[in-house]
């Protein structure tokens, strides 16, 4: 019975957050702690000859750690072990860590860092992904026979689409604190992170030690969005080396400049589409080429490419599809995880391609989508037959009903929109649309390999303690688990406690990524709770009275108050990793967005004036939290579309501060009108699927589509900055060029 699921409980951790009591990493009191810093490369590629230490500085005041101080393997263990904790000879990117310094105070640290000068013999750097020779990972997806179908095609529509990188811009910069090994030899790290067991694994590898000699604890984390998926492993390795060298706790908390300069951002992309379409708009064949810039090391790139390729054909039915994907190595700062994980890039491309097709056939964009959208019984590009929980029609029709976009004369079939005056400026308005899906959970056999584990345990006070490694960093993990556990136990939210993500206390339920926390881990939480409930009622046969009393009585009667569950994938899922065929995800979230914009014809500045999103999440466990996720994700997507500029020069990010690395503020933000649709997923907890990443995918193409509607020019490269729009406008209107 659902009592708490579907209602809005308050965030259990909320009172601490609104009163200043919540303890983030920088807030931890660490008497006697030193400050850690990093000497870095200032060139993208070269050979490290040494780090000169200026004799004018008294080096006895600080402690240093270089590659020689790494006790185990000098690698940050992620997918591949190619990224060193500290460079030894080869320098592969600007900002690469070379030498670590700990000092008793920030001032001394600053002086020491300024007195350490790397000597690097520069080498030619590879900075353009188009001619990068090193392929980090490739994927080929084939359905039907796209090359033959395209060879026969009467009409082929082609487009090339680009997205630049994007900064996560969590408001709390990255930070960890490491303690030197305690009396039992255990190294403890606390920090801002999404995935404590990732950090744990990298420390065990770097220290060459036993799993129980490392303990990683997540503290309150001020946003992540993927940005705190892999990088905390790097930071933790550094802080641990320094804590060992200094013999005291070491705080490594980046300021905003350092965070912006060296932490991973969204992979830049270039996607080419060649599509064969029938006169009525039916997609006959799609050939898609995906290229991502991976940066200097593998990090998470193969998995980002995987998600990109699987989503590259969009939420459309097509019998002949070929998707070729490559992520290449360049000498950029390694790119990494950012909400959507490759899907926002390819969703931008395929949605722009759909608009291009609509324009070429003089079909309404909504009509073209209606004709080709995936429905129950259709198969995706990987050949997955969609059996259940497909909200495609609902989300599309509802957002159209709310926005009346299908009655809007998009690009006016060639008729230019009249500019109108608004406060003395020449402006044009436009409306755009996008339709998309996002796979929930790890790709393919990922969940099977991981085997997430979850424990629920009754404590002496009669509360149920939920133990997982899933972290809260704003999405509402704590409230969501509380609601699921309360209902599964027949308890009230007050009877539930969510344990801190401490690797020495909780089982490994996997990383908090990939929109998997609710569907996968939440499902395990419910199962464990149901098992406990069954034991309790078998013991007493009575479910009346307060849960805590019953739980205490159950324990007093010798009942076993500990339940552990290992995740089992829904039955019947088949995935062929070698050929990228089969059931890529257990379920997909579905959504459609409409954006309205106003473009200033003199400055080419874009203002998004209204944004609508209709989303099928299966079941909203906590509707207010789900809305919050969708609103926040949509705004990040709007920023990605036109506002958030991150550029590189010589391998360096040019935007090194918040004043230049812009994210939307309240005045850049339109009203975001979210509507939830619930097409339940039978294997998800209470019918839920994932929601975290989905809203990041569709906003950018919807905004680009609206700009295209307003200006009548193609918007194929985002962010659509005024400079880019002016360029495109002048190409279309050479008579206006001065």
């Amino acid at each position, binding site marked *: 019975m659902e009592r708490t699921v579907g209602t809005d409980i308050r*965030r259990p951790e909320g009172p601490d957050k*609104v009163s200043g009591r919540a303890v*983030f990493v920088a807030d931890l009191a660490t008497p006697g702690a030193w400050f850690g810093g990093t000497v870095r490369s200032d060139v993208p590629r070269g050979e490290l000859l040494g780090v000169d230490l200026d004799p004018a500085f008294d080096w006895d005041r600080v402690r240093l750690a270089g590659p020689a101080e790494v006790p185990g393997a000098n690698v940050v263990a992620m997918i591949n072990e190619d990224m060193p904790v500290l460079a030894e000879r080869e320098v592969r990117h600007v900002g690469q860590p070379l030498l670590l310094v700990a000092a008793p105070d920030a001032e001394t640290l600053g002086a020491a860092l300024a007195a350490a000068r790397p000597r690097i013999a520069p080498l030619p750097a590879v900075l353009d992904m188009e001619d990068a020779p090193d392929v980090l990972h490739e994927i080929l997806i084939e359905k039907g026979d796209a090359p033959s179908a395209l060879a026969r095609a009467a009409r082929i529509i082609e487009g090339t689409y680009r997205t630049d990188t994007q900064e996560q811009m969590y408001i709390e910069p990255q930070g960890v604190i490491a303690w030197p090994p305690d009396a039992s030899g255990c190294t403890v790290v606390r920090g801002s992170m999404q995935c404590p067991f990732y950090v744990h694994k990298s420390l065990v590898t770097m220290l060459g030690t036993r799993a129980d000699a490392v303990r990683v604890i997540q503290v309150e984390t001020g946003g992540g*969005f993927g940005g705190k998926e892999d990088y905390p492993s790097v930071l933790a390795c550094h802080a641990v080396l320094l804590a060992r060298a200094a013999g005291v706790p070491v705080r490594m908390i980046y300021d905003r400049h350092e965070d912006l300069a060296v932490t991973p951002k969204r992979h830049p992309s270039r996607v080419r589409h060649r599509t064969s379409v029938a006169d009525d708009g039916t997609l006959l064949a799609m050939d898609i080429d995906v290229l991502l810039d991976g940066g200097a090391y593998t990090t998470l790139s193969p998995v980002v490419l995987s998600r990109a390729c699987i989503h590259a054909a969009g939420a459309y039915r097509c019998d002949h599809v070929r998707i070729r994907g490559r992520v290449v190595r360049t000498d950029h700062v390694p790119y990494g995880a950012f909400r959507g994980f490759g899907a926002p890039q390819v969703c931008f491309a395929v949605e722009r391609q759909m608009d291009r097709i609509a324009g070429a056939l003089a079909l309404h964009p909504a009509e073209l989508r209606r004709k080709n959208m995936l429905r129950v019984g259709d198969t995706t590009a990987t050949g997955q037959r969609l059996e259940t929980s497909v909200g495609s029609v609902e989300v599309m029709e509802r957002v159209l009903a709310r926005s009346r976009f299908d009655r809007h004369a998009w690009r006016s079939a060639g008729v230019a929109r009249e500019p109108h005056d608004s406060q003395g400026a020449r402006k044009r308005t436009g409306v755009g649309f996008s339709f998309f899906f996002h796979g929930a959970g790890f790709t393919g056999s990922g969940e099977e390999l991981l085997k997430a584990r979850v424990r629920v345990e009754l404590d002496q006070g009669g509360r149920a303690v939920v133990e997982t490694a899933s972290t809260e960093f704003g999405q509402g993990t704590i409230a969501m688990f509380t609601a699921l556990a309360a209902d599964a136990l027949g308890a009230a939210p007050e009877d539930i406690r969510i344990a801190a993500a401490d690797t020495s206390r909780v089982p490994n339920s996997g990383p908090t990524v990939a929109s998997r926390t609710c569907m996968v881990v939440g499902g395990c939480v419910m199962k464990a709770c149901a098992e406990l409930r069954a034991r309790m009622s078998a013991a007493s046969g009575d479910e009346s009275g307060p849960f805590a009393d019953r739980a205490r009585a159950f324990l007093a009667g010798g009942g076993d108050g500990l339940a552990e569950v290992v995740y089992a994938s829904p039955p019947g899922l088949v995935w062929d990793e070698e050929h990228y065929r089969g059931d890529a995800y257990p379920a997909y979230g579905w959504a459609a967005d409409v954006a309205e914009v106003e473009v200033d014809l003199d400055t080419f500045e874009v203002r998004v004036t209204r944004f609508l999103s209709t989303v099928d999440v299966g079941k909203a466990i906590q509707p207010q939290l789900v809305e*919050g996720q*969708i609103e926040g994700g949509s705004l990040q997507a709007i920023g990605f579309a036109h506002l958030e500029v991150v550029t590189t020069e010589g391998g360096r990010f040019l935007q090194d501060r*918040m004043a230049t690395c812009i994210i939307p*503020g*309240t005045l850049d933000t339109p009203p975001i009108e979210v509507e939830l649709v619930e097409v339940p997923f039978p294997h998800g907890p209470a019918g839920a699927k994932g929601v975290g990443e989905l809203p990041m995918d569709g906003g950018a193409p919807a905004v680009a589509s609206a700009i295209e509607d307003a200006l009548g020019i193609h918007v194929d490269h985002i962010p659509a900055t005024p400079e880019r729009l002016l360029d495109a406008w002048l190409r279309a209107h050479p008579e206006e060029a001065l």
Partner: protein
Amino acid sequence: MNGAPDTSFTFTVNGESRTARCAPLARLLDVLREDLRLTGSKEGCGEGECGACTVLVDGVAVNSCLVPVCQVDGAAVATVEGPGLEAVREAFLAEGGAQCGICTPGMIVMTKAWMDECERAGRAPTAEGARKALAGNLCRCTGYGKIIASAVAAARGESR
């Protein structure tokens, strides 16, 4: 720190008189967080761009990362930990205005400043007004809708 010798500064924080001995140009944010161990005010940028460090000085909202402590000698400083914010906190809880919580202290203090301003000016608190008042406070989680709703609910005294 800034060359000048440490000096004593006395001001009230959340109604209590406090004294800090520090360099005159020490940032108010650091004095609050380190010397006085009031870590509710956050540092998101250190350059006046994010508003996470917002506090009130004599009722006026400032970015405490930009204010040298010598400027608040004798002043009244109010932070997110202080009294008088119950209605704002309640509204942020009820309306879902706090997600990760790192921008929240600044949002709450700025909301309070806006409410006081509306009251002084006899202006009705509107969503548009809140949007403008919070323009200097960045949030990456919420998309702002629920923050604006929280601010308006607090100002109208109608949080559910």
